[in-house]
């Protein structure tokens, strides 16, 4: 589904990503972990080109994301993203947040979009909030709306950029539950997170990043029970106390 070859990203002199290669298969849930500043978020944001890669190639669903001749907006329709700070459109109701993109991009009629939106809101347990504004929701509710919004595009894969980091602890659970359900339904997901529990329980594969490299990758068992690299061991030792 997503193939990354020789991906590099530099901010001026600062090398953030160095020769990243990886292959994410359809239906796979890949969790990216690693210390702050290791390049996890940058890696994720390069995948839908919110961050412009310096060099390398990314192929999504058979189309080159990095190739300028492909319309990046068409690719993003099928490669959604969920943000740390939700980025809900504050001037629109929850319902409008979900229907804006499908309707304006002529993917669905207004009726279809609203029907689909109600289904999705029901799925994340927020059907009764359809006509509320984002400012009237709690953090956890906002993130669930954001996930529903990304699903409204009927994407082939979803990128999660630290979806629980901005939440109060008591709200983390409700968001992770939604994500677990998604993974179980076979959605292709790339998740950058600090939730080691989620990584261990839900991930098909875990990538450990440090200093711009993928230091180690494997099944949750391999990474958490039997890490091979010193960097991985010391990181896990610090977070899993």
């Amino acid at each position: 589904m997503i193939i990354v070859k020789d991906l590099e990203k530099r901010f001026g002199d600062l090398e953030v990503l160095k020769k990243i290669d990886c292959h994410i298969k359809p239906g796979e849930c890949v969790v990216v972990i690693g210390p702050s500043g290791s390049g996890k978020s940058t890696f994720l944001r390069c995948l839908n080109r919110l961050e412009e890669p310096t060099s390398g190639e990314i192929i999504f669903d058979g189309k080159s994301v990095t190739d300028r001749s492909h319309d990046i907006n068409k690719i993003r329709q099928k490669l959604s993203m969920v943000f740390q700070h939700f980025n809900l459109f504050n001037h629109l109701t929850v319902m409008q947040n979900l229907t804006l993109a499908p309707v304006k991009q002529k993917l669905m009629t207004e009726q279809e979009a609203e029907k689909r939106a109600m289904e999705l809101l029901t799925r994340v347990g927020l059907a009764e909030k359809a006509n509320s504004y984002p400012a009237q929701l709690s953090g956890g509710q906002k993130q669930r709306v954001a996930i529903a919004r990304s699903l409204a595009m009927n994407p082939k894969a979803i990128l999660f950029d630290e979806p629980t980091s901005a939440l109060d602890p008591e709200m983390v659970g409700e968001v992770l539950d939604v994500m677990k359900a998604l993974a179980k339904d076979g959605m292709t997901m790339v998740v950058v997170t600090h939730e080691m529990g989620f990584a261990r329980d839900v991930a098909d594969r875990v990538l450990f990043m440090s200093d711009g490299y993928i230091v180690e990758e494997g099944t949750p068992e391999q990474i958490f029970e039997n890490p091979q690299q010193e960097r991985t061991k010391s990181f896990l030792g610090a977070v899993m106390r």
Partner: protein
Amino acid sequence: MKKRTARVLAMCLACLVVLGGMFFPVSKPAEAADVIAVGTNAEFPPFEYMNNDGEPDGFDMAVIKAIGEAEGFEVKIVNMEFKSLVASLATGSLDAVIAGMTVTPDRQQSVDFSDSYYTAKQCIVIPADSDIKSLADLNGKKIGVQEGTTGDLLSTPGEDNDVITDPKTQVQRFKKGTDAVVSLNNGGVDAVVIDKNPAETFVANNNGKLKLVEDETSTEEYAIAVGKGNTELLGKINSGLKKIRENGTFDKLVAEYIGGDTGAKAPETGEKQVVHVGTNAEFPPFEYMNDNGEPDGFDMAVIKAIGEASGFEVEITNMEFKSLVASLATGSLDAVIAGMTVTPDRQQTVDFSDSYYTATQCIVVKNDSTIKSLADLNGKKIGVQEGTTGDLLSTPGEDNDVITDPKTEVQRFKKGTDAVVALNNGGVDAVVIDKNPAENFVANNKGKLKMIEDDTSTEEYAIAVRKGDTELLGKINEGLQTIRDNGTFDKLVAQYIEGKTETEKQTSENPFKNFLYNVKYVFVDTNGYQLMLKGLGVTIGISICAGILGIILGFILALMKLSETRRKRKTIPSRIAGVYIDVIRGTPAVVQLLIMFMVIFRSRYAVIAAILSFGINSGAYVAENIRAGILAVDVGQMEGGRSLGFTYGETMRYIILPQAIKNVIPALGNEMITLVKETSIVGYVAIIDLTKAGDFIVSRTYQTFLPLIAVAIIYYIVVKILTKILAVVERRLRQSDNR
């Protein structure tokens, strides 16, 4: 030195000839009576030059030959040095001289001149890269001239020359204009001062290397010179000149030799000619704004009557008095009628018609004042209308031998009525103004003011036209004569100047009743409320149009500037927007308005000019407000939109701008409120908005408190309503913020 020697020599020769004439009366041989020896200096194209056959040719040659033909004499051309021409006339070896010769007082002492046959301007020819802009810039420079020409006189430092004063200025006198230009090309001189027509030929022949600067102050008349006292020949020449002018020969020659541009043009269109007439409607009863907000008064009636009599249509433009003469020169006006006095100063820049009115200056003072004459005003505070005769009379200076005390304070008002208001308030001690408005002022301030006539300052009012526009001048004079003859003029005098149609104000002992009468007088009896309503409409109209334009421009500019934020570097649109905002914010709105109206719109379409000017001005401020509003929207909103497959533009439109508007509304509202009040300066371009309407009511009623307070209250109400509307809009937009 050389010049003086030449002058003395010429005078001596002239004396000799006069003496000689006494001893040998009618010394002309009879058989030569039909052959006239005409001298020229064939070095002054296109007036005179050597043609390919080696014979003197050019416009002047053709003119004198045509005159000869018309009057039945033969012309024999003698080519000689320019400075010998006058002397040769005196000795009798020449009968006449035609050599692009300018009429000067000096020359008039030794020769007699015919009627002028051409009006020329002096020009400065300089290398294309030179920064010389006027005659004054030539001080201390090396100047090339043709010996003995007007250019020579203008360039030579001396007692009579108040432009070139630096004694280090070097004047190189060449025999021929072309030699001077060659020297200029070789760097021998910095500039050449010469008549306009040869100058144009020189510049055209040195394409790209030279340019010319016209010296507006030195317009001169070319005429044919004959020996002093030779009235017989002079008469023949003048009558011949008249004939060839009348039968079209002259115009043909101009077209052939000079190329059309003679300053005398005759746009013969089938339709009625429209004459743009400027006035300054602040000088009752000659010109004032009537109840419909249109210029009215004696002058308006006179010029319209003249137009009817002479078959042209009149379009009146109202502007500041001191802009009138300049507008004639730029061509945006064809004529000016504004109680304008004929003065020598003004005669240098405009031509005046026959006088249509004789006025006397008056001093208006308070009843208890001891001032008895103009001389008593020394050291006092004097109020005048800017640029009027009263201003000239009151201002201490070299030419003023009545007001000599330099401590005399002259306050220049835009309007005579303002000066009278200042007099009533004690701001000035006296107002010096023309007699007729003065009489009106005294009559309208019954018992409080009196006037003193100053008999030394009788002046003539005339209609001004562009210098050299003899066609229009002729029509105006003709029309003036017609309406004087048929009695129309006297009727207008009776109606406008002698008739009193002022509304009387009721008074009462009861102060409250008196106040009510006052209100009635100011707003009802004199139709003040109508003027104010109209003004309010204009204010609101201009504000709304300019506001809309400003918001549209502001949006475009903000997006142009934001391209910089998106690309993370300066872009061409962002630079353009940056310069626009910088320039507009760095200059006063009044100046922008004046430039828009006077320079770009050439003093027409004032309302459109005002809307554009305020819109453009407002756009700069709105742009920054909107830009700040957009930047205040969280970057996550853009990322959220883009991640859903929206383009940059779509994200802006659907997600960023709707949120930015909410941030911008308070600042935008502020800007609109400022705009409404800022439009009060449109009076500068003679639009009657609310402020100007209040101003007029003050002029008409001599009441300051009521009209001005009323204007202030109306502005306040307008702004209050605007504020309320904005509050409602803002509340609507803030809906999504509710928790």
